[in-house]
């Protein structure tokens, strides 16, 4: 469904991605694993059109995305929930969700999706008139994912959804992510919590210094000595 | 260091040439233009110190120019020797800067910009009300009025400002100022006392601005006190510095020459104030297409590889 072919990306004069390729099939959860600053977020931003690649191509269901602006990419059904969560702190929860459905694609089925999101995260319904800034970290992350869902994505990209959250909250979020996946939404996941990431994902890519260095079934990676050493700590071996 | 010697010779040569200019020509228009250019070099360099090197976009620069001008003018016409009046003017400007500096530097970004703009406007309003009548030179001074001392004074002012900026840019003070401009947190945690550094930069900048005002007050036959506080003085300095190249030694010089010559040339060929409008259009074009000013444009055009710049891999 998603095909990233040999892309290079620059931040100003700095090259952030080197010849990166990646594929994702319909209904899959794929994880991207790598150290801080290795280019995981950059890759998601490239796909979402925030930082278009200078070379290579990005295909989604056969359509070239790499020349499209961000707001058009949303219309194709590709949605990014960025690391800073991409919500509007000074607006209330229901306004945030409404803006999540700003695209033509999302607006058509706004009411039904809203229903689904409130079913997934009931707390959001209780807080719908509250300013986003006053929500807890976990609630903000739920809102971020909910807002993403309102654009009716076929592919949802999540950047560090567990960032700064307590373990229990993280668990809830990931349960929700699995539920979302079961409704047929494909998921591209960037996650520092390698354990969880590899548990929910089917396949994973390991990225180092802007290059994909390994690509494997998730369950194999969990057994891979090298990965364990680099990302889980040597004591695990 | 041969490279430095070369620059010194060029600089000295230019000063010598400028000093001899009145020997070659007595055309008053040439002298007037030169006078203006030199005064603008002084004024824009003074803004360059606080705005270009220390990175504080001070839009209240006219206040210090005006204070210098007004103080100098009134003390001078009251009978104080001119040099003493001039220094007093610059001194008053500096004192005022230090007074308002501490609260002003509490403001960041956009608020500093607006705060300084409003501060100058307050002074303008007060001065307009307090001194509504233009100050005209007395007849005896008018009779002996000569452009020549004004020209040499302007030259001295301009040279002083260039020397000041040269030494600042190579001193500990300048290093601290630039560090503040680039990143206050990093500067702070590297030991730079932000407030102290900004205040010193502000003091030097406003002293030179006051000097520029004083020289202008000496140069003009009639002065409307409110006029020297007009935001136009700030805008002119900012425009010159940006067009020439902000935070560089040469930028304001190039900017001033370009500014005065183009303005004069346009005013000769266009009716009324339209030359200002054309100048505005040109300025906008420069901002849009040469965002780093002439200096950077020339540098980039001249050679793709310069100090500390990797050759560009990509076109953009």
């Amino acid at each position: 469904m998603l095909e990233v072919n040999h892309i290079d990306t620059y931040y100003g004069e700095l090259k952030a991605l080197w010849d990166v390729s990646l594929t994702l099939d319909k209904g899959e959860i794929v994880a991207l694993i790598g150290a801080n600053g290795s280019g995981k977020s950059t890759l998601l931003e490239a796909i979402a059109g925030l930082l278009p690649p200078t070379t290579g191509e990005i295909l989604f269901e056969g359509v070239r995305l790499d020349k499209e602006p961000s707001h058009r990419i949303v219309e194709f059904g590709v949605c990014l929930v960025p690391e800073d969560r991409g919500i509007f702190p000074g607006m209330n929860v229901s306004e945030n969700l409404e803006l999540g459905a700003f695209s033509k694609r999302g607006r058509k089925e706004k009411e039904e999706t809203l229903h689904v999101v409130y079913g997934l995260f009931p707390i959001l319904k209780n807080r719908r008139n509250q300013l986003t800034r006053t929500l807890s970290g976990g609630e903000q992350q739920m809102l971020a994912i909910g807002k993403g869902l309102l654009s009716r994505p076929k592919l949802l990209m999540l950047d560090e959804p567990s960032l700064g959250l307590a373990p229990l909250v993280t668990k809830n979020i990931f349960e929700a992510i699995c539920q979302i996946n079961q409704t047929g939404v494909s998921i591209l996941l960037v996650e520092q919590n390698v354990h969880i990431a590899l548990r929910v994902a089917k396949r994973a890519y390991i990225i180092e210094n802007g290059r994909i260095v390994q690509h494997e079934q998730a369950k194999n990676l969990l057994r891979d000595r090298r990965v364990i050493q680099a990302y889980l700590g040597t004591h695990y071996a | 260091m041969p490279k430095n010697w070369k620059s010194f010779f060029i600089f000295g040569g230019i000063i010598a040439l400028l000093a001899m200019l009145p020997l070659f020509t007595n055309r008053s228009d040439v002298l007037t233009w030169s006078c203006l250019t030199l005064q603008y070099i002084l004024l824009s360099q003074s803004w360059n110190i606080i705005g270009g090197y220390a990175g504080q976009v001070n839009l209240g620069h006219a206040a210090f120019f005006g204070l210098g001008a007004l103080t100098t003018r009134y003390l001078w016409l009251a009978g104080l020797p001119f040099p003493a009046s001039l220094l007093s003017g610059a001194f008053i400007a500096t004192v005022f800067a230090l007074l308002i500096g501490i609260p002003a530097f509490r403001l960041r970004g956009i608020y500093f910009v607006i705060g300084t703009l409003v501060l100058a406007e307050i002074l303008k309003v007060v001065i307009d009300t307090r001194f509504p009548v233009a100050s005209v030179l007395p007849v005896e001074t008018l009779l002996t009025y000569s452009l020549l001392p004004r020209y040499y004074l302007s030259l001295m002012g301009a040279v002083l400002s260039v020397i000041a900026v040269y030494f600042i840019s190579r001193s500990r003070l300048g290093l601290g100022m630039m560090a503040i401009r680039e990143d206050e947190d990093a500067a702070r945690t590297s030991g730079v006392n932000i407030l102290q550094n900004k205040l010193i930069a502000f003091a030097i900048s406003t002293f030179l601005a006051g000097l520029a005002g004083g020289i202008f007050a000496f140069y003009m036959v009639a002065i409307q006190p409110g006029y020297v506080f007009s935001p136009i003085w700030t805008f002119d300095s900012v425009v010159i510095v940006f067009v020439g190249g902000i935070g560089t030694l040469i930028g304001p010089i190039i900017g001033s020459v370009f500014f005065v010559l183009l303005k004069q040339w346009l005013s000769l060929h266009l009716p009324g104030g339209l030359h200002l409008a054309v100048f505005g259009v040109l300025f906008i074009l420069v901002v849009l297409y040469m965002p780093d000013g002439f200096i950077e444009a020339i540098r980039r055009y001249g050679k793709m590889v310069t100090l500390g710049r990797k050759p560009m891999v990509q076109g953009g």
Partner: protein
Amino acid sequence: MMLEMDSLSKSFGGLMAINHLDLDVYKGEILGFIGPNGSGKTTLFNLISGLLKPDSGKIKLNGIDITPLSSHKICQMGIARTFQLTKPFAQMTSLENVMVGKAFGCTPTWSMREAKEEAEKILRFIGLGEKSMWRASALGVVDRKKLETARALATKPKLLLLDEMMAGLTPTEVEEAMVLVKKIRDSGITLIVVEHVMEAILGISDRVVAINAGEKIAEGAPQDVVRERKVIEAYLGEEA
């Protein structure tokens, strides 16, 4: 004892970033500091370096209370730091960047020649000697990190705080960096090192402190700390 933190607290809009933290740093050691993203590591560095003021609690350097001091004073007393997201003086050359540290730091100087010589020495030490005339904006991520460290070293600190210096480095580069950190320690500087790269933390630290949600959850020898269940859960994710 070099640095003492006594019941330090800091909250942001109700969220406790640092919660009554007690922490001691001993002279001459490398203290590894670990914890998941958002656990308060960077906040702690901001508190120590004076960029943030604690809501309560004290920080003492060699017995002197530095809590009320402003950042530049703290730096001049001998604490230098780097930033996780590097903050180079972008439009200045590498040399000038490092000169700032020398000219204003713990052993300030008015002589630009002295600052320049010292800066050149440090740049060579850190491996940026050839790029001393490059503008910082033209440096790559790795070089920026080196520059950041060089600038901090130039202030002649007694205590150096390194914030994720090795993030995003290749394994070889990490090894180089580890050697470098040890060299810095051998020159008599005490270090607090925040790192995500486990190998590095285990390889260089004399002692490790783990925090989560602003609270200290473990402290001790590196090998012991990473075996504690609380740390594993917090840092590496719960094995549910």
